[in-house]
């Protein structure tokens, strides 16, 4: 199955076409095709995952091209002593997998493997390295390399651009996550958007999105990643604007699309730099291996990773380019759950994780104490969490919470805690989907997301939604020991404290992370208060509410269950009693050990469980949730301080105005552009496009204006005229300078030809 992973994206792609073609004629409007195809994909994804697990466990590479050709350094891999794997070493679980993985190249060439790998040139060595001797227990450990199967997409003029699938722990994980969430969202949607006028269209795009996302995560080349990246963006655009008749929705769709375009430029630049840096290859394995081996200059890697960070910034909603994500909540809620919380927005994270050696080397993550990625994540996580405080729309709260959690992941990657980031990606996908679908369940009847105006006291009428929402919230807060969020967030914080050069970790990141944790707890407590407690307000008071049907509730329960158990796949040693075999199982399975990953880098390490971090983060929950509890439930604290205290009010206003970014965008930059255009349109107008034009264009336009006015229209004409026109005077000539005259053009032509000839005669002889 590992080599046939290409089937997985193909199924929803076919489903997309089928739904478009015949969906309308089917009794359930095409949703059955979508659900069936995603269900098949889910099963196949599980198969892939099991295949991968057994591959890691037995170390016999079953099929396919192996991804471990050393490109520059082909011999002389010294076996590194186990230095950094301090925690695992004692434990005896899998130290060798990280520490001394060493390219024991027992390359038994099973040369031809598959029909698709048409042995082109140097690659395709089909090297299957297995078995490096572990130190403890004589047990064999394996550098399990990814299963890459690719074929030539096109090959001409010395170019061999290949596409294919790359299956390893990371992509297997993503397959499972994407198909699982997608399946649940499909089921949820059959009830949620029932009766919609574009019901069939909706499911078709869900299928297309699933296909694109799966295509993206399976990419074996960067070019394929770019294509998948664009495709998911396109689906996101189409689904945010699902109800495009309402102007704010289509504006939000455009804002999302155009903001992402800014990042795409960065993505393109980064990928092109990497292409040339890797001697003309789009192959991910090759690029990462070369980055690992130091075959690419550090400056190139730095530029490439900074370019790619722009892409992360837009796609994964990092600070400054995050503003599209809350607006994207204009789309149907299941779409928000699937695309704007669980899957598409983590594409940026996934891309960084996939090309991790590039960032690791480029940003000196392993040896530094501060870097751009970590700062970007830290800033985003705190600012996003603060913004969530002032929202009254529950989906916006969750959207800012998503931004904040994405910030955690980026920060984790920035500090070198790769596994923690991916683990958090995994748990977050589950509990955030749970929360989003829960909010959809709440709003299904009242058709409003405004928790201050239209909700309240809902725990009585929707007990199951309440319970699942509460569990999701607990996971998001990171309630110790029992929730998934605790284990993943804790690992990130431990990483921020421990990793990096000099032994003092990333101090900035851990401070921001803890502050963010406090805020998270506070704003979620606030949301719970508004939604479930107190008296029903607004629409919820007017309407007769009841719990939703099984198609909505069952997915919620599954996700709530996942929000609890997902954390137990990666229990660190030394925390709670847990079978040794299952400790750090996730890390063992998902973290790549091949040469295309940084695991052999001596600066790459894993954080161990730190009790005090757990305690502090528990403290954060108590402080955050407790303060909010006291404030809302007990009515304690300086209520009305925003009215009384200038500073508090200022703070609140700053938050409510989203740090004034929108003000900046609309009022300051726009300079008084007022009118009926929606805020989003302003933003796109004034910021994205003009921002682009401003950045690269405004200067160019100014130059253009200048060249146009003074050189094109002025200087040349003037020079030509003025050269002999001393009598009438230069000013007179300039005044008479006019345009549109064919003979002036003629003089350019002849003078141009003469001067060109003269210049070339001088140059060429």
């Amino acid at each position, binding site marked *: 199955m590992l080599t046939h992973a290409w089937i997985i994206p193909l199924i929803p792609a076919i489903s997309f076409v089928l739904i478009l073609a015949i969906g309308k004629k089917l009794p359930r409007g095409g949703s059955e095709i979508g659900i069936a195809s995603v269900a098949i994909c889910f099963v196949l994804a599980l198969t892939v995952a099991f295949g991968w697990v057994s591959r890691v466990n037995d170390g016999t590479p079953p099929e396919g091209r192996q991804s471990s050709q050393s490109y520059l350094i082909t011999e002389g891999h010294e076996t590194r002593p186990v230095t950094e794997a301090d925690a695992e070493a004692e434990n005896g679980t899998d130290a060798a997998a990280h520490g001394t993985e060493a390219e024991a190249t027992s390359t038994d060439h099973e040369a031809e493997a598959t029909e698709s790998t048409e042995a082109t040139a140097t690659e395709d060595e089909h090297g299957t390295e297995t078995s490096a001797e572990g130190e403890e227990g004589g047990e064999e450990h394996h550098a399990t390399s990814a299963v890459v199967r690719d074929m030539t997409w096109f090959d001409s003029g010395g170019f061999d651009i290949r596409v294919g699938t790359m299956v390893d722990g990371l992509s297997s994980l993503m397959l499972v996550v994407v198909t699982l969430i997608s399946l649940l969202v499909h089921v949820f949607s059959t009830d949620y958007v029932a009766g919609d006028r574009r019901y069939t269209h909706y499911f078709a795009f869900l299928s297309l999105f699933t296909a694109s996302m799966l295509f993206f995560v399976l990419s074996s080349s960067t070019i394929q990643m770019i294509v998948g990246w664009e495709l998911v963006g396109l689906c996101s655009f189409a689904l945010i604007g699902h109800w495009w008749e309402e102007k704010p929705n289509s504006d939000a769709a455009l804002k999302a699309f155009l903001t992402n375009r800014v990042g795409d430029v960065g993505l393109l630049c980064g990928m092109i730099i990497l292409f040339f840096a890797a001697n003309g290859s789009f192959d991910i394995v090759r690029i990462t291996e070369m980055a690992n081996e130091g075959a690419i200059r550090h400056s190139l890697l730095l530029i490439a990773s900074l370019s790619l960070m722009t892409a992360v910034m837009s796609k994964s909603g990092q600070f400054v380019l995050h503003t599209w994500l809350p607006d994207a909540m204009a789309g149907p809620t299941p779409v928000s759950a699937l695309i704007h919380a669980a899957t598409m927005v983590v594409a940026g994270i996934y891309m960084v994780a996939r090309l991790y050696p590039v960032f690791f080397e480029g940003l000196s993550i392993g040896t530094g104490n501060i870097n751009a990625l970590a700062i970007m994540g830290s800033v985003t996580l705190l600012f996003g969490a603060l913004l969530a405080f002032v929202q009254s729309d529950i989906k916006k709260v969750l959207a800012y919470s998503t931004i904040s959690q994405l910030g955690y992941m980026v920060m984790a990657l920035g500090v070198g805690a790769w596994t923690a980031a991916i683990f958090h990606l995994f748990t977050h996908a589950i509990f955030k989907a749970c929360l989003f679908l829960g909010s959809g369940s709440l709003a299904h009847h009242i058709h409003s997301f405004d928790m201050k105006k239209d909700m309240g006291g809902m725990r009585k009428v929707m007990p199951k939604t309440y319970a699942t929402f509460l569990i999701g919230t607990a996971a998001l807060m990171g309630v110790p020991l029992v929730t998934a969020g605790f284990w993943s967030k804790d690992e990130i914080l431990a990483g921020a404290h421990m990793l990096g050069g000099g032994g003092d970790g990333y101090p900035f990141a851990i401070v921001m992370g803890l502050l963010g944790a406090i805020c998270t707890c506070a704003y979620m407590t606030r949301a719970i208060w508004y939604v479930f407690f107190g008296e029903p307000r607004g629409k919820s008071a007017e309407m007769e509410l009841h719990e939703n049907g099984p198609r909505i509730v069952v997915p919620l329960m599954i996700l709530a269950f996942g929000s609890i158990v997902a954390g137990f796949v990666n229990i660190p040693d030394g925390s709670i009693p847990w079978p040794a075999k299952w400790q750090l199982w996730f890390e063992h399975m998902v973290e790549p050990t091949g040469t295309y990953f940084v695991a052999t880098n001596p600066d790459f390490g894993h954080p161990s469980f730190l009790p005090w971090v757990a305690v502090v983060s528990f403290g954060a929950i108590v402080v955050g949730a407790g303060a909010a509890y006291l404030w809302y439930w007990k009515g304690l604290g300086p209520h009305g301080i925003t009215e009384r205290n200038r500073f508090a009010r200022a703070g609140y206003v700053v938050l409510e105005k989203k740090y004034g970014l929108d003000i900046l965008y609309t009022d300051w930059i726009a300079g008084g552009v007022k009118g009926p255009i929606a805020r989003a349109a302003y933003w796109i107008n004034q910021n994205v496009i003009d921002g682009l034009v401003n950045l690269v264009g405004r200067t160019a336009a100014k130059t253009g204006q200048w060249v146009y006015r003074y050189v094109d229209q002025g200087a040349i004409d003037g020079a030509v005229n003025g050269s002999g026109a001393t009598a009438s005077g230069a000013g007179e000539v300039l005044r008479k300078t*006019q345009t*549109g*005259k*064919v003979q002036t053009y*003629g003089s350019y032509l*002849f003078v141009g030809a003469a001067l060109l000839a003269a210049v070339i005669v001088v140059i060429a002889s």
Partner: protein
Amino acid sequence: MLLNQFLVLAAVLFCIGVYGVIARKNGVLVLMSVELILNAVNINLVAFSAMTDSISGQVFALFVIAVAAAEVGVGLAIVLAIFRTHKTVDLDQVDLMKG
């Protein structure tokens, strides 16, 4: 005879023609100046033909003459149409489009 005396004559005619096409106001006169340029080319071609004893130069010159006749026909038609719409053949006044 030196080859260069013909070539220099042609170059002089060429440059006079260039001056004409840039400096004349009247569209018809611009076309006449173009003919000066083309004649310069023809003198070049025929002189080279004599010089290298290759018949191609003369054939080239004949083609140039034929094309020049066609060009003048087209050019005068366009100048005539300009005159109809703009009531002038002063090319400087035909500058509605600019920028």
